[in-house]
């Protein structure tokens, strides 16, 4: 049978398929490159300047950390809509303990991470013990976390977080780029390694694709999903610390604004490198692709309404393109996503 299959393959097919597979893997990189060229032509030196790239690379660590952490439960098929709530809890904990209670910064950071882990454990427990779909349970806990943030902070913005933290996050630049960028890249590397080269990551992948099968294969499905949600909360906790360090403060509401960009980055990232699979480097590329476009527009002085237009348009177009190339050579089976 394989013989016949090989026999029947027209000689042109492999090349075509290879181009398809390549564009599927690196299509977004190409679009990114085109974008850079276009902006360079329009704006010249400013866009290409070191300072601009430092600003592009340095400004999205919080988003990157959030998105990369979210990859883990998403791989196991679990949406976590509460990551931004955890982000808020973490940054608020740091600010509150450090500023109002006078804790040393390391203790405040440790407490923030601990609080995030607890929040993740709550998510995990609801999903695993009560069997509630994570999309809805984390929608609920996200709201609960928001309530907790209001309660903690008394709805106040808290400023004056120890400059030590800011030094660790945005001070001491390497190649002119703040440390936070390297934390984000480091997190990407870890998540990439975990998903690709560890038993845990592989198990998460199977859990995400077929739960009964995973159970049958002896995986502790509940524990894995629990862990996945704890890990995304942990990453959101770190993102919260970075956020507090970046702004030297914490406010009760702004963390919510990261929710849609985070999901956009995760989904868009799943169209690069390993198409149809959530992956860390793809997510990194997606984040910086989007921010490149937006920064370019900002440098152009484009009206502010252009930003959401670009953001949404870029998302739809690049996913559509990757989908398109995939369709061409494979009769699509199942795909990413829910239920």
């Amino acid at each position: 049978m394989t013989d016949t299959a090989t026999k029947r393959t027209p000689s042109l097919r492999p090349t075509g398929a290879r181009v398809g597979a390549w564009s599927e893997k690196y299509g977004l990189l190409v679009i990114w490159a085109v974008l850079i060229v276009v902006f360079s032509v329009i704006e010249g030196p400013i866009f290409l300047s070191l300072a601009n790239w430092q600003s592009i690379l340095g400004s999205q660590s919080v988003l990157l950390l959030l998105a990369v952490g979210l990859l883990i439960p998403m791989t196991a098929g679990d949406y976590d809509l509460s990551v931004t709530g955890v982000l808020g809890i973490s940054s608020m904990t740091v600010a509150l303990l450090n500023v109002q209670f006078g804790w040393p910064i390391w203790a405040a950071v440790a407490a923030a991470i601990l609080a995030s882990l607890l929040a993740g454990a709550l998510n995990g427990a609801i999903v695993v013990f009560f069997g509630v779909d994570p999309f809805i349970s984390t929608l609920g806990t996200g709201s609960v976390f928001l309530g907790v943030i209001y309660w903690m902070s008394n709805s106040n913005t808290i400023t004056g977080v120890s400059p030590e933290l800011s030094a660790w996050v945005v001070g001491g630049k390497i190649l002119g780029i703040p440390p936070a960028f390297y934390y984000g890249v480091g997190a990407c590397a870890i998540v990439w390694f975990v998903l690709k080269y560890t038993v845990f990551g592989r198990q998460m992948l199977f859990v995400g694709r077929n739960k009964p099968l995973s159970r049958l294969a002896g995986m502790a499905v509940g524990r894995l999903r629990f862990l996945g949600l704890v890990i995304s909360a942990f990453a959101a906790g770190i993102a919260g610390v970075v956020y507090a360090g970046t702004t030297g403060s914490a406010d009760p509401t702004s963390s919510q604004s990261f929710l849609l960009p985070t999901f956009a980055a995760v989904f868009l990232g799943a169209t690069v490198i390993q198409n149809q699979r959530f992956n860390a480097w793809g997510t990194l590329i997606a984040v910086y692709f989007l921010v490149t476009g937006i920064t370019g527009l900002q440098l152009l002085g484009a009206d502010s309404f252009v930003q959401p237009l670009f953001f949404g348009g870029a998302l739809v177009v690049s996913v559509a393109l990757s989908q398109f190339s995939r369709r061409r050579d494979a009769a699509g089976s199942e795909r990413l996503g829910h239920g």
Partner: protein
Amino acid sequence: GCSSPSHSSSSPSASSQSSAAGVAAAQAALTKAEAVPSYTAPGPAFDAAKAAGKHVFYIPQTSNVPFVVAVQKALSKVAATAHVDLTVWPTTGKSTEWVQGIETAISQKADAIILGASPDALAPQLAEAAAAKIPVIVLHQYDTSMTLPANVKAFAFAPFVPAAKLLADYAVASTKGSADVLVITSNELKPSPPMAAAVSAELTSTCPKCTDTEVNVAAADWGSKMQSSVQAALLRDPKINVVIPLFDSSSQFVTAAITAAGKADSVSIATFNNTPFVLDLMQKGSPVKMDVGESINWIGYAAMDQVLRVLSGVKPLTNESAPLRVFTTKNVSVVGSPSDNEKGYSTSYVNGYLKLWGLTSK
């Protein structure tokens, strides 16, 4: 009262002279506003005893901001003194909640409604309240220069435009007439467009060489977009030396952007609202160098003045508002640590208002 004399820079030779004059005028306005504001009776005295026993409903824009909590405290205090029954309808900033609040106030036959939420989003409900003969007093959303909504009995005004002028004055004065200003607006907020216009107009009139650009960042996006927007603007125009976020609750993001761009020493921030955490920032040393705003407690008293007038059947005032005070690095220490902007005001207005209402003896 900070309108500077208008002038024209018709001839080039006059321009440097007029520029120096502009700087001086700006500085003068600023200096005046840095002083502790004094209380002057906003209008004729009346007997607030007639308001006793009446029921007032307070619907804030969103209960999740400290401003509202503080105003609420002031309102409650005055209400208790005047024996007015105050009900607070907590909201989270959604228009459906405001609608429901007004419906509830109407159904409970309240004697007045204090509206912290936007009357723009409530025109039909205000009409309904008017039909039910329930007076509505709008709190701290309009400048006297703005077009006012219908079906509102009285306003406790907010000096948005004078504050904006002071922001521009600061930019002019602090740069000695060579300000390159970045104004950060949030145009979906009602006061933002008139304030931005006022900044621009004041710059044009006091400082011909000054330039300004605007960047609009919606309040909902402050956390995720403000920093990169400001960084991009600084890159695009490296000469920017003053950033004016119109609302100081976004200062921490602007500060982060300026720091990230390595311009903490050359770019200063002037902003509006006197939110305590921003005064904190200023005290601890940050690019925030100027913040203008009002005493929240005073706003509460001013609002209650209008409420009591309405409840007592007295004609409400047309220019009721709390005065502005400018804090700069020079005078910010008066607010103490942690910052409490109420400390920047003499409390003479409390007794002043009580006397105005005839409530001192009780």
